[in-house]
């Protein structure tokens, strides 16, 4: 080999932008070199990036990402030109080629418009989880924001998050861009209306292996298996839709097959305020409830509930506080009257089709005499959602209860530990008609042996709901 040729060859070996010899691929993983190339582009080190893309190209000679990256690193194209090319490819439905060019351009110069273009490709191939963060980036760009909202609405709708879908699509429908606004208006009805009046009916049957418990959950000696029929009607009015003030009223009835003196007829009324946003919600409610048992007044109660949830990274944090004041009318039950405070905190990891929640619940009951107690324990729930709105869940709850004072009848301070496992299923039959089934088993051990008990429950029911407008 002549000296000038040798020098030329040596120069080519050190020049990352020299033509790449087609050796049919080399050893190693092109993906690693592509990632390093993108990293180096992002660091502004074009020379090193070119070597990385060159190595990727040697291993995968036709990889469009390596071609685009090398062209950019070697100054043969610009990020703007790559984005323009990618736009044409997206229009021609070649998302693979477009993504390669967008990735190279974004590595060197990330901007919201290219985020939107990349997101369009991900949405087209159904990779919504990759599209969403890019669409959120695109919101920062005035020109890209309207289309980003439209796509965020579409992505939310596909993941059955109707609330978020409606909000994104409403914002997109108000856009100055007529094409975006028109598309958003077409999609809005499919995201579900924001109903103002809701009515629901429930009818079902329950069975309980130990039907009678004292009002505070302690087993009564006369408890035996019994079945009951149950029905409920609930009406909710919320003049401003999901977010805003609401009132609720309901009537419920339970009729026992065996213990007819314990048949219940109750009504409740509540009012409150909810604030629902994409990533969090808050609810504050006051409720009054009144129950008649065996045709005679039994219980009057007031309750205040505060609930909140918030999305934090991959999980939802939910919290609920309830205060309840129960006033029992019959002489024998009056000693159970008093205040109850309950706090329930949970972490929920929810995917499109399944969820897992874990949390802790505590309750403080302040009733007269020896009936005040503290109860607390963890709870875990797992569930799956069906494609047509059905769902199946399993739950385990452990609780430990300790009474404040000695019970004069038992001659000791009562403590109870309980474990309850529950499972439930819902199937949407048609429109607002759904079938529900659930079952549970509870095991309670107490330091007064006669109050330890086991309990099995089952229920089967049908619900129907409708809403206006």
């Amino acid at each position, binding site marked *: 080999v002549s000296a000038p040729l040798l020098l030329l060859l040596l120069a080519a070996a*050190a020049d*990352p932008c020299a033509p790449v010899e087609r050796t049919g691929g*080399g*050893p*190693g*993983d092109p993906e*690693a*070199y592509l*990632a*390093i190339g993108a*990293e*180096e582009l992002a*660091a502004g*080190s074009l*020379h*090193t990036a070119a*070597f*990385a893309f060159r*190595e990727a190209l040697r291993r995968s000679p036709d990889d469009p990402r390596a071609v685009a990256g090398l062209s950019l690193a070697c100054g043969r194209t610009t990020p703007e030109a790559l984005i323009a090319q990618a736009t044409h490819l997206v229009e021609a439905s070649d998302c693979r080629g477009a993504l390669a060019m967008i990735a190279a351009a974004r590595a060197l110069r990330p901007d919201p418009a290219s985020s939107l273009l990349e997101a369009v490709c991900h949405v087209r191939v159904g990779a919504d989880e990759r599209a969403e963060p890019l669409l959120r980036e695109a919101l920062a760009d005035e020109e890209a924001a309207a289309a980003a909202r439209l796509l965020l609405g579409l992505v939310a709708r596909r993941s059955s998050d109707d609330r978020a879908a409606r909000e994104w699509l409403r914002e997109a429908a108000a856009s100055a861009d007529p094409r975006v606004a028109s598309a958003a208006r077409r999609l809005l009805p499919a995201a579900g209306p924001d109903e103002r009046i809701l009515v629901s009916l429930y009818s079902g049957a329950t069975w309980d292996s130990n039907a009678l418990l004292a009002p505070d959950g302690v087993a009564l000696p006369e408890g035996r298996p019994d079945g009951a029929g149950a029905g409920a009607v609930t009406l909710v009015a919320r003049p401003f839709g999901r977010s805003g003030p609401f009132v609720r009223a309901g009537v419920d009835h339970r009729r026992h097959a065996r213990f007819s003196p314990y048949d219940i007829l109750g009504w409740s009324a509540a009012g409150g305020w909810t604030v629902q946003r994409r990533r969090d919600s808050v609810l504050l409610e006051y409720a009054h409830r009144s129950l008649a048992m065996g045709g005679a007044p039994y219980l009057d109660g007031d309750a205040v509930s505060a609930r909140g949830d918030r999305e934090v990274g991959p999980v939802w944090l939910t919290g609920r506080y309830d205060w309840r004041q129960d006033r029992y009318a019959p002489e024998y039950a009056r000693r159970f009257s008093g205040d109850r405070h309950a706090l329930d905190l949970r972490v929920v990891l929810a995917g499109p089709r399944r969820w897992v929640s874990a949390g802790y619940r505590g309750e403080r009951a302040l009733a007269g005499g020896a009936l005040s107690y503290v109860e607390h324990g963890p709870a875990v729930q797992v569930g799956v959602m069906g494609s047509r709105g059905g769902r199946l869940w399993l739950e385990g709850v452990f609780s430990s209860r300790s009474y404040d004072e000695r019970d004069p009848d038992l001659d000791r301070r009562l403590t109870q530990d309980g474990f309850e496992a529950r499972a439930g299923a819902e199937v949407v039959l048609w429109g607002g008609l759904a079938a529900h089934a659930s079952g549970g088993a509870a095991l309670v051990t107490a330091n007064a042996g006669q109050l330890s008990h086991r309990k099995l429950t089952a229920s089967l029911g049908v619900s129907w709901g409708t809403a206006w407008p």
Partner: protein
Amino acid sequence: LLRFTLLLISVALVAPARADSSADGHLRAGARYFRDGRFAEALVEFKAAERRGAPGARWYGSAALVKLGRFEEAIEGFASAERSDPAMGDAFLGYYRALALHEARLYLSADRVFAEVGENAGPRISELVREVRGRIAARLEREPAPSSIDWYHRRAADAAAVGRYRLAEALLGEAVALAERRGDGYRRDEAAATLARLSHAGTIR
């Protein structure tokens, strides 16, 4: 022992190495490029080795960054390597680390690392170390000016703002050390407090 030197020697002994896609293969390819002065290619191969979990690859990649004049990235790379792979550092790599610190104007930090390198990296490097330490001593003879300390604070704030916490830590560490050389400890407590916050942020990232 000088692992990096040994790595270079092993390359010399087996060269031309057969193409190898394993972590060691990338590491050897990187060392070969490094030996030939082709530092960009060396960096790419060391990064590929790091992705495959090769021990020491981050140290070597950081040395390549020094050779490429990317001193601040090298400082971050060495800091990260020290946390994730502390046993792989040696005097030779320490010398490169000290050079990166010196070129990024972190003189006191550089001097500390040069002192650790001392006579351990062979006679030629030891002589260079003595020379650079002499220059640093002359530069730091006078009490550091407040404006000089302010510069480190400013640079650290800029680095932290873009998520470069390890670089910010290094800059604030220098600010603390400089403040301690002044009678009034100018902005020392402020730097130490920010450093504590950033150390936590840097650790969790």
